[in-house]
């Protein structure tokens, strides 16, 4: 068995999500190859070659693969997939965008967002916003799978020394083009990789009040998240959203401030190691999953918390 992992990268190096996906591949067993597709991705391929447990890095460096347009990248993966038993990608927006297109072109069903590997053909995945866990088996010749990164501990980013091999012709479908992007700037750790996450909900009242969470987060070295209610109310940008329709996080410590704890939010954070809820409504459902609950006015509790940590 040989497994192909489609790398996710940012700022010229592999992203942490790739390390979790390689960990899932290692659980399946067999040689792990990593595909780096993009433009000017030599540095990314070099960082991928250092990942512990990676046997080979395939690099497809071509203008057609810039910005990970699925119309161009999917045919490349399909071309390469023929030699593999499994094709894995992290369940990031890129992975979710590209991999189902690959699966359909290979005429196989895809298994989305696995959280555990039972055997080479059997996997567990959450359904109904995490309210049920399904065990699914695939009989496909090539198993196409996206990996929920919080379900697997990252492998070491250093220690490997894989060979780098250039692969793949340019597939340019010519039906889509990148126009631009607008990225939210942040000096804090990335939400899905942070050890501590501080999240605010509708209870924050407005976007300006999030400054209390930012200063607490800076003191803790934490990332700042938000509930869908806070995003929909326009308090913060949507890439901060934690939940079924936003990001899935599983930090060591999750501090939910002014968040009621709707099903859709819990689906994004209930695998956190320790959950703290600060809410003035003692009936809020968040207290049913919180290890430590504090019934208090957040505008008093958060500054006090910041002072004392």
């Amino acid at each position, binding site marked *: 068995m040989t497994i192909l992992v489609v790398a996710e990268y940012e700022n010229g190096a592999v992203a942490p999500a790739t390390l979790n996906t390689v960990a899932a591949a290692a659980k399946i067993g067999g040689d792990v190859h990593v595909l780096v597709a993009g433009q000017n991705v030599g540095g990314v391929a070099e960082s991928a070659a250092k990942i512990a447990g990676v046997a080979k890095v395939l690099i497809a460096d071509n203008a057609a693969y810039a910005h990970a347009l*699925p119309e161009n990248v999917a045919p490349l993966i399909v071309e390469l997939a023929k030699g593999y038993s499994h094709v894995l990608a992290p369940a990031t927006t890129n992975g979710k965008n590209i991999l*189902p297109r690959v699966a359909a072109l290979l005429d196989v069903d895809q298994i989305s967002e696995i959280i555990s590997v039972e055997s080479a053909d059997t996997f567990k995945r959450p359904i*109904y916003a995490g309210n049920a866990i399904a*065990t*699914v088996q695939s009989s496909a010749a090539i198993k196409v799978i996206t990996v929920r990164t919080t379900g697997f501990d990252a492998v070491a980013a250093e220690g490997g020394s894989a060979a780098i091999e250039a692969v793949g012709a340019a597939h340019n479908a010519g039906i889509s083009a990148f126009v631009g992007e607008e990225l939210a700037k942040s000096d804090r750790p990335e939400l899905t990789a942070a050890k501590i996450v501080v999240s605010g909900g509708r209870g924050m009242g407005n976007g300006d009040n999030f400054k209390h969470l930012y200063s607490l987060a800076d003191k803790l070295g934490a990332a700042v998240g938000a509930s869908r209610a806070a995003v929909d109310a326009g308090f913060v940008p949507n890439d901060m959203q934690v939940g*079924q329709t936003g990001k899935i996080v599983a930090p060591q*410590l999750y501090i939910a401030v002014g968040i009621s704890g709707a099903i859709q939010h819990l689906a994004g954070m209930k695998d956190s190691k320790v959950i703290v809820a600060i809410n003035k409504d003692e009936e809020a459902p968040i207290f049913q999953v919180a290890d430590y609950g504090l019934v208090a006015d957040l505008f008093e*509790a958060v500054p006090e918390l910041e002072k004392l940590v």
Partner: protein
Amino acid sequence: MKVLVAVKRVVDFNVKVRVKADQSGVELASVKMALNPFCEIAVEEAVRLKEQGIATEVVVVTVGSNAAQEQLRTALALGADRAILVEATDDLSSLTIAKALKAVVDKEQPRLVILGKQAIDSDNNQTGQMLAALSGYAQGTFASKVEVVGDKLNVTREIDGGLQSLELSLPAIVTTDLRLNEPRYASLPNIMKAKKKPLETLTPSALGVATTSTIKTLKVEAPAVRSAGIKVKTVAELIEKLKNEAKVI
């Protein structure tokens, strides 16, 4: 241009689902069903394109049991012109559904197909991308803004870290994210009118689509429950617990 919208009947998002005792699935008998929230956004976008004079006809399609007619009528009440039900069992895989939708696309020849980004039951997030692959069309997934300019489609997508803008050639496939629009409510007169709108029923076999699948669900379990926590009285006590008991700060 003609716009095709795919919708799905799912458990209402407010329902807290329970796993069946025999682990064969979740309890769906006598549970409130509804239009998948992302599909509602897809219907709304198509209807808005029609109101702007861009779409000439909005056709809504679903693949599922006969009961899904109810959700098609809801979509018709929201402003779709006619409906297609591809009658099949409710547990088809995303790939099978994408194949059935591809057959409908071949028959109807829409310029734009809009789907939700994911159904809140299977949480797969696959069908739109698979339909795009099978049709050979470009895809604009997780769309928060859609604009038709001549024979191109400008799509703003929600990606990790922010927003991305793409230009796609039509015909194209779009999947909706939450912030694309705010769906309207169906008015009573429109609900009455929707009953008279045409609803065509097809079958996968008539469309030449096999319903076999390479995946099988072995069991469905309830997730591990978190052990009950405690309530602390003061911030100082909270910090003490986090430092000495949980050892996370």
